[in-house]
C-alpha cells in the first residue's frame, strides 16, 4: 500500500545514519598479513577489482591483502563521513573531486602526501582537484573522463563532409546535414539538463573562456560570467539550436544515445564513458574534439577528474596503505585500470596505450590541446544557489524557452554574486 510510504524518505534518511555506523573495516586473519579496505562508490567495479586488479597487486605484495568495499554512489559521501567520524572507515578512501573532498580534508580524514615520490607521476593540474586549501595534495588521481563528439563516419562519407575543427566549420557541417534532410544533425535533447552542461557548454565553452584562465578567473573573482568571453561561449552553445531533433525538449540522454546508435543522427556530443553504449553493432563511429573558436585558435579538451585515492588518517596500517597507493601511480595499475574500464583515462604523465579504439581516439584528443575540468564544480557550487545546477537550468531554458545567452549569463552572475565572496567585491 502506498499509505505505508508515509515516511519512507525519513526512514531512508535514518537508515543511512543507522547502518553506516556499523560496518567496521575488518582486519586480522592470518598473522603477518595485513588486510586493507578500499572504500569506493563504484559498486559496478567490484568484480574487476576482485578478479583482475587486486590479484595483480597481491602477486607482488604477498603480505598485503586489499579488500574492495564499495557503497552505492548516492550514499557514499554520507557513509564515509559517518564511518570516519565514528572512528572506523576504510584504510583507503576514494576521493570525490573538489568541494566534497576539500571538506573532508578540513575534517582531517586524510594523511598528507607532501613530498612523496609517487606524486611525481602526475602534473600539478592533475593533483589540484584533491588538494587542500594550502595546496597540499591529499589524494592520488586514479582516472578522469573526457568530453567530445561521436560522429557517424558513414554519414560523413555519404554527405561528403569533413570533420570540423572550428566553430564555423562545425555549424556548416550541421547545416549541410540538415539541408540534406535524411539524418538528424545533432543527437541532443534537453530533458536531462546535466548533459547540456557537461557534454555541451563545458566542452565547447573553454575555447572561448580560454580554459583554466576563465575558470580560475571566476573562482578568484577577477572574471564575471557576464564577460564577453563567457557570453560568446553561451552563444556558441545557442547556435546548435536550429539543429536539434524533433521534440528535443523531452528527449532524454538515453534517447540521444539511441538516436545516434541507430544511425539516425550524425553527431552526438557526449562523454567518454558512453563509448560502449555508442559503439554497437557495425556502426562506424569516430571521435572529434571540441572545435576551436577561430581558425588556428587554441584547442581545449574537457578532462574531468573523476576519482582519486587517499590514505585514511584513522587507518592502523598507514605504511601498507601507502604502499598500495604508490602502486596505483605505476603504469602497471593505470593501464590495467583504464583498459578494463573503457572511457576512463589515466591522469598520469606517462602515456598509456588503450586497447579500445574509441578510447584511444579520445586519448589522442588530448595531444596538443589544453586541458580543463568542468567549469562549475570547483568552489562555485559550494553555496546556494549552486552554480553548476544553475548552469543546467539556464541551458535548458535556452533550448526550451528561448532564453538569450545575455540573460542566461546575467542570471548566473546574479546567483553567484548572492553568496560567493570573491564575486561580491566589485
Amino acid at each position, binding site marked *: 500500500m*502506498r*499509505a505505508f*510510504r*508515509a*515516511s*519512507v*524518505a*525519513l*526512514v531512508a*534518511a*535514518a*537508515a543511512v*545514519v543507522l547502518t553506516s555506523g556499523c560496518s567496521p573495516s575488518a582486519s586480522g586473519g592470518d598473522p603477518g598479513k595485513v588486510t586493507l579496505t578500499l572504500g569506493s562508490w563504484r559498486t559496478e567495479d567490484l568484480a574487476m577489482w576482485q578478479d583482475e586488479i587486486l590479484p595483480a597487486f597481491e602477486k607482488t605484495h604477498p603480505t598485503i591483502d586489499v579488500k574492495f568495499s564499495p557503497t552505492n554512489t*548516492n*550514499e557514499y*559521501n*554520507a557513509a564515509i563521513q559517518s564511518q570516519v567520524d565514528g572512528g572506523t572507515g576504510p584504510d583507503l578512501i576514494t576521493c570525490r573531486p573538489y*568541494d*566534497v573532498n576539500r*571538506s573532508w580534508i578540513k*575534517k582531517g580524514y586524510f594523511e598528507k602526501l607532501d613530498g612523496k615520490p609517487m606524486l611525481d607521476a602526475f602534473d600539478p593540474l592533475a593533483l589540484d582537484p584533491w588538494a587542500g586549501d594550502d595546496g597540499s595534495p591529499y589524494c592520488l588521481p586514479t582516472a578522469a573522463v573526457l568530453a567530445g563528439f561521436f560522429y557517424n563516419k558513414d554519414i560523413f562519407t555519404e554527405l561528403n563532409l569533413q570533420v570540423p575543427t572550428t566553430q564555423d566549420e562545425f555549424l556548416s557541417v550541421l547545416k549541410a546535414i540538415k539541408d540534406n534532410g535524411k539524418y538528424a544533425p545533432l543527437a541532443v535533447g*534537453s*530533458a*536531462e*539538463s*546535466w548533459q547540456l552542461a557537461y557534454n555541451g557548454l563545458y566542452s565547447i565553452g573553454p575555447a572561448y573562456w580560454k580554459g583554466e584562465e576563465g575558470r580560475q578567473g571566476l573562482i578568484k573573482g577577477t572574471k564575471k560570467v557576464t564577460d564577453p568571453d563567457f557570453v560568446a561561449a553561451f552563444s556558441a552553445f545557442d547556435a546548435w539550436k536550429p539543429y536539434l*531533433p*524533433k*521534440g*528535443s*525538449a*523531452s*528527449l*532524454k540522454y538515453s*534517447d540521444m544515445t539511441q*538516436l545516434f546508435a541507430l544511425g539516425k543522427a550524425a553527431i552526438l556530443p557526449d562523454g567518454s564513458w558512453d563509448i560502449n553504449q555508442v559503439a554497437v553493432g557495425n556502426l562506424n563511429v569516430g571521435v572529434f574534439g571540441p572545435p576551436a573558436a577561430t581558425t588556428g585558435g587554441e584547442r581545449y579538451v574537457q578532462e574531468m577528474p573523476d576519482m582519486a585515492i587517499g590514505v585514511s588518517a584513522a587507518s592502523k596500517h598507514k605504511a601498507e596503505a601507502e604502499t598500495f597507493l604508490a602502486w596505483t601511480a605505476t603504469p602497471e595499475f593505470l593501464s590495467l585500470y583504464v583498459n578494463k574500464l573503457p572511457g576512463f583515462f589515466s591522469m598520469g604523465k606517462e602515456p598509456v596505450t588503450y586497447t579500445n579504439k574509441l578510447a584511444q581516439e579520445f586519448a589522442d584528443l588530448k595531444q596538443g590541446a589544453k586541458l580543463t575540468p568542468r567549469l*562549475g*564544480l570547483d568552489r562555485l*557550487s*559550494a553555496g*546556494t*544557489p*549552486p*552554480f*553548476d*545546477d544553475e*548552469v*543546467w*537550468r539556464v541551458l*535548458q*531554458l535556452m533550448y*526550451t*524557452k528561448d532564453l538569450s545567452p545575455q540573460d542566461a549569463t546575467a542570471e548566473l552572475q546574479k*546567483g553567484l554574486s*548572492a553568496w560567493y565572496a570573491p564575486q561580491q567585491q566589485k
Partner: protein
Amino acid sequence: MRRAHYRYFLAFTLPALAVYVLFAALPLLNSMYYSLFDTDGDVARFVGLDNYHYLFTNPTTSERFWNALVNNLEFFAIHLLVEVPLGLLLAALLTSGRLRRSTGLYRTLLFIPTTLSVVIVGFIWRLIINPLWGLVDYPLLGTETTALPTISLMSVWQYVGIPMIFLYAALLAVPSDVLEAARVEGAGGWTTFWRIKFPLIAPQFGLIAILTYIWTFNGFDLVFALNGSAPGPNYSTDILGTLFYRTFFGSSGQLADLDLGATVASVIFLIILVITGAYFGLLHRRLKSYEL
C-alpha cells in the same frame, strides 16, 4: 481472564509496534532533532530555528520551497479531480451488473497498474509519449506547462485502482433490499445511482481525499524515476519529496546538507500533520452515513 486477554494483546502488537517505532517514529523524531542543529562544521551546534528561518528567507531556497509546494498542490489537485471521479465511474460500472461474469476480470485488470513498480510505469509512459519513437509528437515532458500534469496523469493511471476498490467495496455494501425497493418504485439506473447508492457511499470520499493528500504530499518516486533529483524543466516538476531528496542527499551540482534536509522533512511532516489532524478532528466525525 480479562488480564490474560490484555497480555495477549500486548504480546501480539509489540513486534509491529517495535518495527514502527524503530523505523518510522524514531527517525521522524530524529530528523526533527537534526533540524535544530548546524552540522556543517566539525561539531554539531544547536541553532534553534535558524534552519527554518534560512529555508524561508534565503531567496533561492525559499523560491524552491514555495515552487515545490505549489507544484505539490497541483499534483494533489489533479489526483483529486481526475483519479477520484474516474475511480467512481469504474466502480459504478463494475457494480452495475452490465459486465456480468467478467466483473472479476476487469476488477483485476484495472487494479494491476497499482501493483507495478513506478520505475516501470515511468519507463513505459516515457516511451509511449516519446516524440521520437512514441505516439505523441509534442514534447509533453519537455515544456514547463505540460510536464507536471503529464506526470500527474501517469500517476493517476497507475493508482486509479485504489479509489476504485474503496468505492467498489462501498457499493457492494449497499443493501440489495433498498435497491429492490427502488426498482419496484420505478427508479431507473441513473436515479438509483445518484439518489440511493451515491449518498450511501459519500462518506468514503472524505477518506479517499485525505489519503490522496497524504500520498501526493509524500510523493517522490515517479517524479524521481522520470526526472531525477533536480526535476525540470526549470524545476516545474519539483515536488516536496524531490526537494527533500535533493537537499538531504545532494545532487550532482549541489552538496548534501543534512540539517537543511531534515528541516525540509520536518516541514513536509507538519504540512501533512496539520491537514490530516484537521480532517480527523473536525470533518471526519461529521461525515455520517445514512441510517438505514
